[in-house]
């Protein structure tokens, strides 16, 4: 299970966001370059259609692979009251032939993306990961070297934290309070509910860039 919120930011303000995150987390950023392959089950396979994502971490000297399954979001009155999305998510690291294995099992390529950016991992009431990345599409199958941005000038910001059935309320509140610190630069909300860029971003970014993040926002 994980708690997740998303937002967008103009590329020109990403450097300011990085300075802010650096100041808030006190850890170094990690470079991020992930080839994400989304597979769907073939027409007759499984009682319902299923979807699985294969993530190839291209930042490593030897690319490493992860299988990720994202399940349904938590529903009900309780889920609506909290400002983050709580959903099931299972990951498994796998050997590099995982794509071939899923093709043999009858899964088909649905779409693929290349995420390029950076991430911060830190503990702040929960094990939070912030990723800031541009989403790129491939013009030819698997051609990550020839990827082009899907939304030029705009980057995706995602804040996630692992949770369990017992801890999700606490984790959600830790994620929400962290997001408030980022509010002058961007607004984060449940995935699928886009709130656009925030009007204060330019001024907040200018302020951050001028004093290196020392100002209390």
């Amino acid at each position, binding site marked *: 299970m994980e708690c997740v919120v998303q937002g967008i930011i103009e590329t020109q303000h990403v450097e300011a966001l990085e300075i802010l995150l650096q100041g808030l987390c006190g850890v170094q950023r990690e470079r991020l370059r992930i080839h994400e392959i989304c597979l769907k089950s073939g027409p007759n*396979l*499984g*009682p319902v259609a299923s979807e699985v994502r294969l993530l190839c971490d291209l930042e490593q000297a030897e690319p490493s692979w992860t299988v990720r399954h994202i399940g349904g979001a938590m529903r009900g009155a309780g889920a609506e009251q909290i400002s983050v999305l709580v959903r099931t998510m299972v990951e*498994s*690291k*796998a050997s590099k*032939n995982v794509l071939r*294995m899923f093709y043999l*099992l009858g899964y088909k390529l649905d779409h693929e993306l290349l995420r390029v950016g950076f991430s911060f991992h830190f503990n702040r009431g929960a094990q939070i990961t912030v990723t800031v990345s541009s989403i790129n599409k491939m013009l030819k199958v698997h051609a990550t070297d020839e990827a082009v941005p899907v939304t030029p000038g705009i980057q995706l910001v995602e804040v996630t934290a692992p949770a369990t059935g017992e801890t999700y309320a606490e984790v959600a509140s830790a994620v929400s309070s962290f997001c408030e610190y980022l509010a002058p630069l961007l607004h984060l909300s449940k995935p699928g509910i886009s709130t656009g860029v925030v009007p204060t971003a330019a001024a907040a970014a200018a302020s951050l860039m001028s004093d290196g993040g020392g100002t209390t926002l």
Partner: protein
Amino acid sequence: MTVKWILHWTPTQGSVVNSQILNEISQCVESFNAVKDGRWKATLTFYRPNLRDPTIPSEFPRDFLGISLLEQPNKYYFIIRGNKIILEADSTILTIMEKLQSYKSKVALNFEGVQYKMGDFQMKVVKVVPNQGESLRGILIEIEYLPISSIEKAKPIMEEFLELWREVMSKKSLPGHFSQAEPHFAEYKLPDNYTSQHTAIQYAAALAQLIASAQLRG
């Protein structure tokens, strides 16, 4: 570091495996001045595609196997023997497969072994039993040489040990013999350096032999 060879018991025409033979084999191992060193377990599971409409002819792997090994509790292995592919994944892959519902486990077999230590060697006497039930379906032995991890370099040492083993076994005049299924590591694109993936492939190959011989007799 380690290299393992896995051999399966092939009964002579007209005979079947039974616990008497298993006991005799264990006695042979003990006669090597071996010290019992605990129990071991692996589980092999056959998966079948979960088809929405089984009447539509579709091409899916018929021999899709999953393997868990006691020595790698956080890993799981998937093998499609027909395509010579082995996948090593974290054991959370089982949760993912359950959620996908595209394949379901059909039959599971437990490989239950008693481990023996003898200097640089280790041996396991392994009985193959269904996941539910006690009936003996097959007998395997695993011979492990600890100081080396190169399969090629270990080969002459393993062959020598196997010769000794066969000599001891021959004194018992049991109705059958141990044979080794060709594991085809290179076809699975595995290196000469021995890993748990090699072990998983050998157990899958040994199981295929057991099934084939049972089908031939049956």
